[in-house]
């Protein structure tokens, strides 16, 4: 799968952008603030329906406009799909697939699969648990688009339930929401455990190649005891916890059990990585995690788009080479760099100059 065309309208710095794209490597060169990252951000938005840079959508809409538009043609071996997305900032987004409006933008999940590497990846290792939950949940959605619905229903059920807890509601009113939190939560935990069990061996192998020495592992740390691959068991365990912690939940006005409280614990040798690993080790781990997700999707039979966003200047020679190797096997790769000199010499591809919101192809 690759994108053969991308148009942006009122998206960030772009009033109107039309790009013809090809399989292989495309490189966007431009100083910070010239708009190169906005291009890959729009592609990632199509894949994840959220930005990798900002938590809410408002900054994506160009000032003075009510909506931003992303339009892309996805070329698959058997068919072309035209996706159009209207980002509305505060109201719900609207989407069309092959000119037909869809009921929810969620129907776009699975059409564009993209994996990105960016300087923020370090947060996977050093950041809050929410970073790692987002990482694993994004991977679940890429592998199985229907998970997007389950995750968003879960998050809404937790919000509804918290709202009741804050108003110190009685147990009869809470029970319907206990049930939903437990059912969706049980499924999410099971799916995370399953994906983690497939991701970990790949991650270990890649990390060994990059960094040698110490063995690594990823543990799932849960708010329930002994989470399993069986979602019904997880559901039962969440309900048990919920019943055991009623008074604490009412006191704090928060749902205290479920996948939104869980974390992935990265272990290096005998140590928990967070707060222990050096800068270099942390980068190796973050990179290995991302490389492993790419490999996992490939094992699933998918050919995700690869995005390398401003990442070369952060990495040493050896790690750069890993990414270049990957860029050469990916069906389509988008790279952003500030200056041409940051590009590894081994890298060939179509180059675009990005300046003041203008994107111009450079002569090869």
């Amino acid at each position, binding site marked *: 799968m690759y994108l053969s065309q991308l148009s942006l309208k009122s998206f960030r710095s772009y009033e109107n952008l039309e790009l013809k794209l090809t399989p292989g490597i495309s490189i966007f060169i431009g100083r910070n603030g010239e708009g190169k990252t906005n291009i890959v951000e729009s592609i990632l938005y199509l894949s994840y329906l959220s930005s990798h840079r900002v938590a809410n959508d408002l900054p994506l809409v160009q000032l003075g406009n009510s909506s931003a538009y992303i339009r892309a043609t996805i070329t698959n071996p058997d068919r072309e799909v035209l996706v159009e997305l209207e980002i509305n900032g505060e109201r719900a987004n609207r989407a069309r697939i092959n000119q037909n409006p869809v009921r929810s933008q969620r129907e776009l999940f699975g059409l564009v699969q993209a994996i990105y590497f960016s300087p923020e990846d370090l947060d996977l290792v050093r950041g809050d648990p929410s970073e790692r939950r987002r990482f694993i949940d994004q991977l679940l959605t890429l592998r199985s688009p229907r998970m997007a619905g389950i995750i968003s*229903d879960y998050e809404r059920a937790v919000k509804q339930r918290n709202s009741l807890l804050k*108003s110190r509601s009685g147990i009869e009113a809470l029970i319907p929401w206990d049930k939903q939190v437990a059912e969706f939560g049980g499924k999410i935990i099971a799916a995370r455990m399953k994906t983690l069990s497939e991701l970990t061996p790949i991650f270990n192998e890649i990390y060994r190649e990059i960094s040698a020495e110490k063995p690594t592992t990823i543990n799932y740390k849960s708010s329930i005891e002994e989470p399993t691959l069986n979602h019904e068991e997880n559901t039962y365990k969440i309900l048990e916890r919920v019943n055991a912690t009623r008074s604490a939940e009412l006191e704090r006005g928060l749902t205290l059990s479920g996948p939104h409280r869980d974390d992935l614990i990265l272990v290096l040798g005998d140590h928990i990585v967070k707060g222990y690993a050096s800068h270099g080790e942390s980068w190796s781990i973050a990179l290995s995690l991302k490389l492993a997700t790419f490999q996992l999707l490939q094992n699933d039979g998918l050919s995700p788009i690869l995005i390398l966003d401003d990442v070369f200047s952060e990495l040493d020679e050896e790690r750069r080479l890993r990414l270049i190797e990957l860029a050469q096997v990916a069906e389509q790769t988008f790279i952003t760099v500030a200056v041409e000199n940051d590009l590894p010499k081994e890298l060939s591809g179509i180059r675009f100059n990005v300046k003041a919101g203008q994107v111009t192809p450079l002569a090869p």
Partner: protein
Amino acid sequence: MYEGAIQDLIDELGRLPGIGPKSAQRIAFHIIQSERVDVARLVDVLRTVKERVKFCTVCGNITEEELCKICRDPRRDNTMICVVEESKDVLAIEKTREFRGKYHVLGGAISPIDGIGPENLRIRELMVRLAATEIQEIIIATDPNLEGEATATYLARLIKPLEIKISRLASGLPVGGDLEYADEVTLGRAFEGRRTLEG
């Protein structure tokens, strides 16, 4: 911002469901440019609908009488009640012709973040009906989404002690959706395959 009456109109229109600021403005200017008689007719219809249309005192469905058409119909089965969120769901289910009982319209679904609890819905009225009449089966046809499911669970637990059979529309309905969007065949099938709910 416009001045005076036109801005008042835009504000009022903008408060209607599904109408954003741009549409509100477009409709307002359309009204300004319309013939006086056309606007008068619109005003009349609005006034009449508000004067005449009310909610059935038994089931909560919309009607111009004391009782709605379905509650008045002697051929309908008095032993079954189908519980829905809105009057438009009654219409959707009627189209399937799968159900010959009566309805109960809740007026929405439980949603704590919107401040809608059981006390804001016509649940007390439902319990009064159940206590007073010969109902044998309740079919809960709230929307197949989070709030609809929560409402179904809440009702099932509430009704269980009355020892009335409780069922829920079968799956197969698009999840996360609205009942009114389900096509007739799917909705009809969901009725046939309804499953008994444990409270």
